[in-house]
């Protein structure tokens, strides 16, 4: 006698199939989104695009120097991207930052505007400013990348 699979067996098989399909679709779309954004950034940095992705400049006014960093990004993927740049200057250093955060929905272009102000700029050696910066890029809601960088380099490279 051949046993017919029960409704429970059919249901379990169907749920397993759904889980597998959801996983495959999610990984495919996340992979494509990462590829699309990465290739967009690469093309822009490589000069293939007319819009520069990253611009940095330093404005010195008297004893105050302000470093500006603008990051323009187009989201060609399927999921929203959150991009933030924070800094944590040493206490009493006279350095302050305007921390910034942008959320880029699919198909949109946004610019992240960041500014770092240094009081008594002339007191510092040209490469003597070190400010820890945290760059956070999140592919909502699946993955995130945190990068710790030295924002003091903005004042040397950006001003060059």
């Amino acid at each position, binding site marked *: 006698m051949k046993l017919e699979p029960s409704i429970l067996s059919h249901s379990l098989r169907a749920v397993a199939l759904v889980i597998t399909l959801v996983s495959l679709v*999610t990984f495919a779309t996340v992979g494509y989104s990462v590829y699309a954004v990465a290739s967009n950034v690469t093309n822009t940095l490589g000069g293939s695009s007319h819009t520069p992705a990253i611009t940095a400049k330093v404005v010195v006014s008297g004893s105050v120097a302000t470093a500006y960093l603008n990051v323009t990004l187009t989201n060609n993927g399927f999921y929203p991207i959150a991009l933030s740049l924070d800094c944590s200057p040493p206490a009493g250093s006279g350095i302050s930052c305007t921390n910034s955060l942008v959320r880029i929905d699919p198909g949109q272009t946004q610019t992240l505007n960041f500014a770092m102000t240094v009081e008594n700029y002339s007191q510092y050696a040209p490469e003597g400013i070190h400010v820890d910066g945290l760059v956070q890029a999140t592919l909502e809601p*699946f993955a995130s*990348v945190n990068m710790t960088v030295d924002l003091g380099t903005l004042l040397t490279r950006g001003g060059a």
Partner: protein
Amino acid sequence: MTEEGRITRRRRIISAILRLIINIISWVIIPTILSNYISTAVPSSSFTLSTTLIYTFGAIITGLQVLSALTEGMAVSIPLVTGSYVAIAYYIYVAVDGGTLALTAAGIGVSLGFQPLLYLVVLPPLFSAIRAPLAYLAEEHEAAQPASDLI
């Protein structure tokens, strides 16, 4: 004829050999190649897939899968199947350090978090671990029902 009786010894052996080959490739050879590649390409990576971990979990998973194939259709195969899927889920979780990878390159610290994606990866084996005993119990329940002519 019972489910056990319909599965021949030849089928069990062929299934066991296939599972042995597939599992060794999946859980020993590929992770070893991947680990060697990452440790060479990104030496500062926190991706620590040691050979001990690879061979331990490779042996556990392969052994359980082969034994479950050899006992297919018997009640004893259910804990073997469940155990192998739990081991697979745990192996994946440990291999990627719970969905967090960190590395340092050129003075820049990079940390990558992908916990939701990891949950999607371990969900199918964990569901399979639950599905195996439930499906067996469902079939046993039907088999245990009295024949309709006896009611």
